[in-house]
């Protein structure tokens, strides 16, 4: 029963639109309780991949198991165990936030209390407001509430914090951390924001042209942990820098040379952003 050890498992996932291979053979394994981030530019195949896992799209090839079932054939019982936060907005403008969350709660066998979910996403003061009166960020938080109300074991978040202000984003990260840490919820996240992936994800995969080009923890993605560091210092009037895979030894040598404090010392490793931009082949 290797299947049971993975919340999500996909092998050789493929999907074409006409002549275009949107997904060209993707393998994914996400453990229960893990927060997994899928990074990639627009059109890389993120949404197609996630929507196949959510059961929205058919695949052309490959094996998929999500919570032990094939999403293509899964029924209500399976949908009750997942939560999907879509990037959308404008439905039911005349309902109130509390009515909408309460209504969705009624679809599930063991939902969270609507008021609790509304508090969790920070819409306490908007509970009795009509949805059409909410700001863009508040609507996104409502979307998140609707994805959470069924008490999912697996949560799909498609660019969840687009349109959030920095404070709301931090608050949202706390929500996700509390779900995955204490709640044991598995989270599959797609995002444009590298800081978001770094802050939330246990593992990150970078997708480009329908294939995964790198996978790892945010700390060691693309060999970042082992990548050469750049040591810089001020040598009289001249700024010097050196690339080295042994920065500690270089710093020790420099310390000996300067007899203690090294003038304006910096040690930098490639940031997640540097690695990411290199992986997706972006012009620097």
């Amino acid at each position, binding site marked *: *029963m290797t*299947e*049971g050890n993975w919340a999500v498992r996909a092998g050789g996932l493929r999907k074409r639109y006409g002549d275009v291979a949107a997904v060209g053979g993707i393998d994914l394994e996400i453990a229960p309780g893990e927060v997994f981030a899928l990074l990639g530019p627009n059109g890389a195949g993120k949404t197609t991949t996630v929507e196949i896992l*959510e*059961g*929205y*799209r058919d695949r052309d090839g490959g094996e998929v198991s999500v*919570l*032990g*079932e094939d999403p293509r054939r899964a029924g*209500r*019982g*399976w*949908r*009750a*165990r*997942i939560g*999907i936060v*879509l990037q*959308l*907005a*404008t*439905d*039911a403008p*005349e*309902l109130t936030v509390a*009515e909408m969350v309460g*209504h*969705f709660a*009624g*679809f*599930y*066998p*063991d939902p969270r209390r609507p008021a609790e979910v509304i508090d969790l996403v920070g819409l306490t003061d908007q509970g009795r407001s*009509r949805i059409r009166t909410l700001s863009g960020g508040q609507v996104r938080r409502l979307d998140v509430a*609707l994805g959470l109300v*069924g008490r999912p074991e697996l949560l799909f978040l498609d660019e969840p914090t687009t349109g959030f202000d920095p404070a709301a984003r931090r608050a949202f990260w706390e929500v996700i951390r509390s779900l995955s840490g204490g709640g044991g919820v598995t989270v599959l996240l797609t995002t444009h924001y590298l800081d978001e992936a770094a802050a939330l994800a246990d593992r990150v995969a970078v997708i480009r042209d329908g294939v995964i080009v790198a996978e790892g923890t945010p700390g060691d993605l693309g060999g970042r942990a082992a990548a050469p560091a750049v040591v810089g210092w001020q040598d009289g009037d001249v700024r010097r820098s050196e690339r080295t895979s042994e920065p500690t030894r270089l710093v020790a040598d420099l310390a000996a040379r300067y007899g203690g404090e090294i003038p304006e010392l910096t040690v930098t490793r490639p940031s997640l952003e540097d690695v990411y931009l290199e992986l997706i082949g972006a012009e620097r």
Partner: protein
Amino acid sequence: MTASAGTRAASVALDAPRTPLPSVWRVGLSRGQVELKAFFRERQSVVFIFAMPAVMLVLLGTIFSGERTGPGVTIGDLYVAGLIGGGVMATSYQNLGMSIAFERERFTLKRLRGTPMPAAAYFAGKIIQVLVAAVAEVVVLVAVGLAFYHLRLPTSAMAWWTFTWVFLLGVASCSLLGIAASSVPRSAARNGVAVITLPFVVLQFISGVYVPFYLVPTWLRDIASVFPLEWMCLGMRSVFVPQAVTLEPGHSWQHGQTALVLSAWLVAGLILCLTTFRWQNRQDR
């Protein structure tokens, strides 16, 4: 036990929810409640759906008040019956066609599809909303007819039975046609009116809603008689202005044929819905 059977048994046990899923009926009633709230709070569409036929009734009844009719028949009475037929189709076909097209375009359907809401509950909610709106529409038009014209409510049980089956068959077949029509426009916002509303407006002119049926040229009446609206209006005239039978082209109410045509549309609409209904729009599959 084979390996595949073992895997299946294990996965079924894994999937069994801790508590049972809510019943289709419960979710369906909840959908109906939400549909009704959303419908009646949308002031613009409520005004359009209810006030428009009432205003048309007063206007048309006044403009054509001198029109020659049959013995004991006023033009206003004919308009009450015709507009009830048109109003039933407006609250079923047009309302569902447009609202579902928008729900698909705005990803409401997609979001619902991602939850354990049963598909049947979604349609149950629509049925509840349409039935309430259609009954309300009939009440409004009958009230206007009683206030401004000489409309008399039928007293025989037979007439009410006719009303009931014409109303229900009309609502059901036009609802299914509306659901099917919702898939036709590429974009609800850009061409929903042209694709869904325009054919309905044309039908209202040739089926005895805006123009008394006996004044419509024969060849247009023949076209109209293919579609359900003409038969719904005919049925409503037989209920609310039975004395006007002499004005009918066939000098009879043709109840048998009415039931037959509406039932045929019911079946056709059901087949269309089952084969064309999609939870996502074309660009999103």
